[in-house]
């Protein structure tokens, strides 16, 4: 399987304690923009992406019953979000 880095739009919830939690992601699949709700957040840690390169705060999330990674390239208080997309 080949993988590609895709930067995505993320809807976040900042709670009163300052924690952030991704609510949904908007990405382009087959040329079409689609938004997916995040059903569950399973884990959060800093990790490298072995599939597409780079590092970030890695959120292990459930989307449509499937487990996937969402990365926040958080560095010096800012950064984009990306996902590892399979390419055929």
């Amino acid at each position: 399987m080949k993988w590609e880095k895709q930067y995505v739009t993320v809807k976040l919830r900042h709670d009163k304690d300052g924690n952030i939690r991704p609510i949904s992601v908007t990405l382009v699949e087959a040329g079409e923009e689609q938004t997916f709700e995040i059903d569950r957040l399973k884990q959060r840690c800093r990790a490298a992406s072995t599939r597409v390169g780079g590092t970030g705060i890695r959120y292990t999330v459930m989307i449509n019953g499937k487990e996937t990674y969402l990365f926040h390239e958080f560095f010096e208080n800012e950064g984009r979000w990306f996902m590892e997309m399979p390419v055929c």
Partner: protein
Amino acid sequence: MDRTILHIDMNNFYASMECMLDPSLRGKPVAVCGRTEERHGIVLAKNYEAKAYGVKTGDVNWEARQKCPDLVMVPPHYEEYIKYSKLARQIYADYSDQVEPFGMDEVWLDASGTSRLFGTGEQLADEIRERVKFELGLTVSVGVSFNKVFAKLGSDLKKPDATTVVPPESWRDIVWPLPVEDMLGVGRSTKKVMERYNIKTIGDLANTDPNILAYRLKSRAWQLVAFANGNDHSVVLHKDYVVPAKSVGHGITTLQDLETDQEVWNVMLELVQEVNRKLVEYKKKAGGVAIYIRDNELYTKQWQHKLELPIQAALSLAREAFTLFKRSYTWRHPIRSVTVSAIALSEESDPVQRTLFADNDRDEKLAKLDQTICWIRERFGKDAVRSASLLCDLKMDTNRVELQMPSGLTTMG
């Protein structure tokens, strides 16, 4: 009590970074090269695959390509290197506040007294290696010992992604058989001196009378013999310690060779703007100037001289540098690169012994003028104010960013 010191070295840092960022490069021979369209492009770093073809750091691009036709050449991404260097240091800082950088990809870490928290030095080293791999996708080699010199030796022994312990009980067995040039502080010229005395290994050095070496190495003889005997008591600096600048310089490889004094003067005049900007920023004065000239045969010469009074003034620096150049360079070959450095720095606020006949007021006015020029250039760009003589073709790209690598060398004494 023995200290526990780790030396952590990121393996083939630039090349590993490129392979980490672009997985399609993995497994291929990769070299990070200076810009290929420019003639001074050289190999800055290579991965193990490229090394197997004999590609060396410093090879000219075409030379590397000749050795390895399938070589993938990529330009450096310094911002990314700096980012990952900082991220790695954040990991190290979880274990100690004494983390001293040595260049961009190496640090010493003092873990003395942390064994109840993090285990032995070796266990800590293994944990750090795993974290860097998992969190950053990069590998490091770690040396663990009771002083900085041996910790650094250790990190060189097994690569990549390995821990090497140089223990206080048996360090002689590990360290003494190693070639003397493996030891920190023994550079190319020191190695030559050692050769004259038939000192081949660190063990040979350890058993040499420093008085004999002192004739050539001066006080460093005692330091190096002490290092070879495991006597290095230098501390690992606090992570927030900033090494004071001992000199500030700026250099450039010109787009075309320089062939006349006038052209060199123009380039120097441009370079000193940046040198003086740094002096202003650091609030320093220059007690001397040094110039480094590389000709088109890639032969480098350097000269320096002391100034009568410490100065912070671009034009005066340029004049001093140019006088030194005229006095020293013989124009056997056209010039490829020029660097001007302000050396013997002192504080801007240090009192200065005035001389009776020098025009001190004029110097002060010039300094104020320079500070104003710096300010205008910072605010409105480098082209806002410029010397009239520099309106001609400079043969240099004035907007090029030259990256200053942090160096911890100065702390070794």
